[in-house]
């Protein structure tokens, strides 16, 4: 595997953290929107649309509604984005070795990724708007439903690799059979879990526009909204990278990264356009009744497999 080392500041601010990550987030958002549009026989947005949206939002006035805690209102989007950007540092982004790595960074990354959803939930709960409140309740409910199965499915490869370090799991995944074949259930649950995390349809009940306008983010405008949105885009890239690194044979170079994540995104876009939105009670039911059980079976199979292997 190639190892490129860059000065820490550049890693944090420009590449592969910071700016480059933000830019790739926008590109992935565009790919996702374009694919969904094509699945629906539409034209879809042009390549600069997410960027244009972002510039427009950043240039707009940020309205702080009455009844909120202003400090919290302003810092939540920043915290959410910062958490997402930090999480990227432990993940083999673009096929490079993670910038920082230590034993157990998988757990830290997963918590950092949850910060985003938590931030959106708190942002909704902070306002007095009814739609935001309903949206916040739904966001947090959803967080508690997909998080456990998602976590369990990422533990599968970790147990196989006998490591809690993402970079080591990546290397392990690269060297053995693609884990999508050895742990197919885990892969499906992980992929669907990622969709739940990103609130993609059919798990978009927390921001169901026909019911609660824009959910928790209804009261957000301007910069706050822009940061939340770009945070979500970054999370999309990180999520894809994680699933690819764990289940699709790891990441060794940028080309491999590009091909594998885009194929995964294609599948995800297909899934997004295939289903009707699930009600929040249906989402919770699905995750706990099916998702969690499947993930546990997978985990059990791995543990038993390893036990037999050792014996």
């Amino acid at each position, binding site marked *: 595997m190639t190892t490129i080392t860059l000065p820490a500041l550049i890693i944090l601010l420009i590449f592969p953290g910071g700016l480059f990550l933000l830019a790739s987030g926008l590109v992935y958002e565009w790919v996702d929107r374009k694919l969904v549009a094509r*699945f*629906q*026989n*539409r034209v879809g947005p042009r390549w600069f649309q997410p960027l244009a949206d972002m510039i427009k939002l950043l240039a707009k006035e940020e309205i702080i509604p009455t009844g909120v805690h202003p400090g919290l209102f302003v810092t939540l989007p920043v915290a959410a984005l910062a958490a997402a950007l930090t999480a990227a540092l432990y993940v083999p982004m673009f096929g490079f070795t993670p910038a920082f790595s230590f034993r157990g960074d998988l757990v830290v990354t997963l918590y950092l990724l949850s910060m985003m959803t938590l931030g959106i939930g708190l942002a909704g709960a902070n306002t007095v708007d*009814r*739609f935001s409140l*309903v949206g916040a*309740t739904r966001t947090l409910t959803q967080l508690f439903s997909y998080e456990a199965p998602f976590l369990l499915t990422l533990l599968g490869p970790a147990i196989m690799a006998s490591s809690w370090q993402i970079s080591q799991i990546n290397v392990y995944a690269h060297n053995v059979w693609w884990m999508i074949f050895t742990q197919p259930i885990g892969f499906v649950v992980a992929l669907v879990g990622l969709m739940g995390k990103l609130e993609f*349809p*059919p798990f*978009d*009940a927390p921001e*169901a*526009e*026909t*019911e*609660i*306008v824009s959910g928790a983010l209804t009261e957000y405008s301007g910069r706050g909204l822009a940061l939340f949105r770009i945070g979500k885009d970054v999370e999309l890239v990180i999520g894809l990278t994680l699933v690819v690194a764990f289940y699709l044979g790891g990441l060794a170079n940028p080309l491999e990264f590009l091909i594998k994540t885009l194929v995964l995104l294609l599948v995800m876009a297909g899934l997004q*356009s*295939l*289903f*009707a*939105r*699930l*009600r*929040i*009670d*249906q989402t919770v039911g699905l995750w706990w009744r099916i998702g969690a059980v499947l993930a546990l079976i997978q985990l059990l199979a791995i543990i038993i497999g390893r036990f037999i292997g050792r014996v």
Partner: protein
Amino acid sequence: MESLANQKKFIVPIGPQHPALKEPGHFEFTVDGEIITGASVRLGYVHRGIEKGTESRTWIQNLYLLERICGICSHVHALAYALGVEKLGNVDVPPRAQAIRTLVAEMERIHSHLLWLGVAAHEGGFDTLFMYTWRDRETVMDLLEGLTGNRVHYSVNVLGGVKVDVDEKQADAIRRGVDFLEERTKYYMKVVTTDETFLGRTRGVGKMTTEQADELGTVGPTGRASGLTRDIRVDAPYAAYPLYPVQVVTGTSGDLLERFIVRIKELYETYRLIRLILDKMPTGELTARIPRRIPENEAISRVEAPRGELFYFLKSNGSEMPERIKVRTPSICNWSSVINFAVGLKLADMPMVLSGMDPCFSCNDRLVVVNRPTGSQVWTWEELRQYGINYYR
């Protein structure tokens, strides 16, 4: 205790501006978590005073005013009105004209039902189905444009007949279009009845028994899905429906899924009717002469709009202008069913239940009242026009 409970009421307003309803209507749902415990409705945000307006326009001008009550079922409004005026004036409309009116009415039904299917799917978060149905709806809109010259306000009717004729080329184009749409409709039937995620949102939701539907006075497909056999095309055939009998489509379970099925089955029936009309088109004149002054009388005209029974009451006073025109649109009948059934449902189901009856706000609201940015004021038509002229100068 009571007052404390009232304070804790958590009301979710839907409308007048809300992405679920592209038209203005105001609903207040009192919710307890996700469960609705109360509902109320306020209409009139687009009340245009058409009933008053008709009293100062001639019989001919009213045809076009009334056609503009609704953009989706424009033809049935004009049809109901024209049939009523012809009744008042004792005019016999030539059979070919009646057949063409029926043909356009049925094509409009396709347009309306496909549009509804898309909207209902969108409310359920199934945007792919929404995009596909609206794409296919273009077919019938293009056919209507080719036949009548306009995509929305077909203006096929004149008092005493129709403006346009159907030639063989048109008929063939319509047949081809109907064949294509029938195939697509079968596909949508399959999707709606088999897709598990969508079924999860429609099956058993908003259930209404036949007795309840009767008690609440529902009309149209909403009522028929609950087993209410009310269809004006069958009960009191008008225009050319006596020549082309319709079979009523009814459902039994009365839930949202059944409303989907009933509307889709109605589409099949509509395709059959269109082919029948095109194959057996009577020949003859297109218009009959009708006097400008309508003798004093009263008439009631009922037609089956895509959403249900449309009721017109016309009263003439022997002059060129009507004395009174009352329009009772199908949507207003169905409101009570929604308001009564909201309690106990989940908030997430509400947009779907609302759209399940295919509400049309322009149907309900028909005064020129404009809210100015500074304070609100009632403007006369002349002032409004002047404002418009100054604005664009």
